[in-house]
């Protein structure tokens, strides 16, 4: 099976472990992901905050490149890119005059044919059916599934999962042997694009998320967005300062959890790239899937 693929800028840089784990899981499920040719940045928050036309034209050019390459579906692992592409596609399909105007800007008569698929839809509909019954090392951990903002909002356009209490990621975790907790911060904002310009606010918002996961006994937070991951992992210093408490709970991409369950080498999933080491509590011998660079006794994956 071959699908279009839009990695987005973070997956080529600060969140390359997300890219590595998406690729490893896809390969393990026999799926080929073909990048959109010569893709550009979607513009993220900056573009639509500063200039409406730019906020629509940058994602439109990505759709145009995919459409010209004959792609019917594009897998978009970054929740922010997913939201921008999906919102742009929706707005252009709803408003013919706008579609013509943006088509003129990007020099391509865009029909908005490619469908946009987020990482949870990709895992649920393509990966899980292919690996069902082939779970080598069940991911039997108690985890907090964190969806963030842009996988589910704006719900009227994305129409994905439940708005306030989504469950698709929890379901995937259950299917790989995990135990998703019931918690209050599934769709609360991590602080997103203010990570650099207002780091202290991000420390507070992301800190509240980690704190709720902690008091409810989660061993890790599972994420599906590079921005959420950066804020929960890279910004751990700001979080600890804001919350006045140390946190050793790792933040793991959903594709890394699925990859571990498939028995993929942790290094191939980029688990060594996190700032907060991915270590789990010790458990009775034999239950912990041991990684190559870590003795099972240390409980490290």
């Amino acid at each position, binding site marked *: 099976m071959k699908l279009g693929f839009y990695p987005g*800028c*973070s997956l*080529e*840089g*600060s*969140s*390359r472990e997300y890219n590595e784990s998406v690729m490893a899981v896809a390969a393990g499920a026999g799926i080929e992901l073909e990048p959109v040719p*010569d*893709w*550009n*940045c979607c*513009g*993220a*928050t*900056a*573009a*639509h*905050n*500063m*200039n*409406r*036309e*730019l*906020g629509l*034209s*940058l994602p439109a*050019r990505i759709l145009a*490149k995919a459409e010209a390459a004959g792609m019917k579906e594009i897998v978009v692992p970054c929740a922010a890119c997913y939201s921008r592409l999906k919102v742009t596609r929706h707005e252009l399909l709803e408003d013919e005059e706008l579609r013509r105007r943006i088509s*003129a*800007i*990007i*020099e391509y008569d865009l029909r908005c044919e490619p469908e946009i698929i987020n990482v949870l839809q990709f895992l649920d509909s393509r990966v899980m059916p292919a690996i069902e019954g082939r779970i080598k090392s069940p991911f039997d951990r108690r985890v907090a599934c964190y969806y963030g*903002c*842009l996988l589910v*909002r*704006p*719900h*009227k356009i994305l129409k994905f999962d439940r*708005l*306030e209490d989504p469950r698709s990621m929890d379901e995937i975790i259950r299917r790989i042997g995990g135990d998703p907790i019931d918690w209050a911060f599934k*769709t*609360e*904002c991590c*602080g*997103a*694009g*203010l990570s*650099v*310009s*207002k*780091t202290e*606010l991000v420390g507070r*918002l992301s800190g509240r998320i980690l704190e709720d996961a902690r008091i409810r006994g989660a061993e890790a937070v599972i994420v599906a967005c590079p921005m959420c991951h950066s804020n929960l992992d*890279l910004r751990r*210093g700001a979080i600890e300062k804001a919350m006045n408490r140390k946190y050793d709970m790792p933040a793991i991409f959903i594709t890394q959890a699925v990859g571990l369950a498939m028995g993929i080498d942790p290094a191939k999933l980029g688990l*060594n*790239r*996190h*700032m907060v080491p991915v270590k789990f509590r010790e458990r009775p011998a034999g239950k912990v899937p041991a990684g190559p660079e870590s003795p099972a006794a240390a409980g490290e994956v």
Partner: protein
Amino acid sequence: MSTDAHHDKATASLAGAILEQTGVPVDKCYQCGKCSAGCPLAADMDYPPSLILRMLQAGGPELEEKVLRSYTIWVCLTCETCYSRCPMEIDIPVMMDYLRHESLRLGMTSPRAKDIIRFHRSFLDSIKYTGRLYEVGLVVDYKARSMHLLQDVKLAPKMYFKGKLNLIPETIKGLPLIRRIFSRSSKAGGEDAR
């Protein structure tokens, strides 16, 4: 300073301009306050979202200028929680985008928001120069603009050793088109997308 210049035609108020340009009906708000209750940064804003709506409903040059000069419109994360909970389905994030664009166009941006705006400009410049976001360049450019030179200096080497930093930017083939997209978009209004 009067804000009349930007809605001189059929739309006599900022709320009218919002309706005309974005279709967002500010007048439908009945002040239930769910947007402000759910907003993760309401406490950090000078006016919470529901108050911005009320100020726009009341209208007049003085209140409208306060809205356009507010910190609220820039610290808003576009997390979309307000819109998802509004019983009248008022698309507050789209309204915030419009207010930001007007605030930029009229040179009324809040001094408290200058770092947020600098970061956005650095981000857009990176796309304009390579077609993609080049993270190292973004941070260096932002530091130069904001003079926050020491911010995150301890993080960078750690990120480098984790293989998270690309030292060479990747430039896409379609860069000339990206440049044309920037120049056409800047003519279309909102921020001059230099």
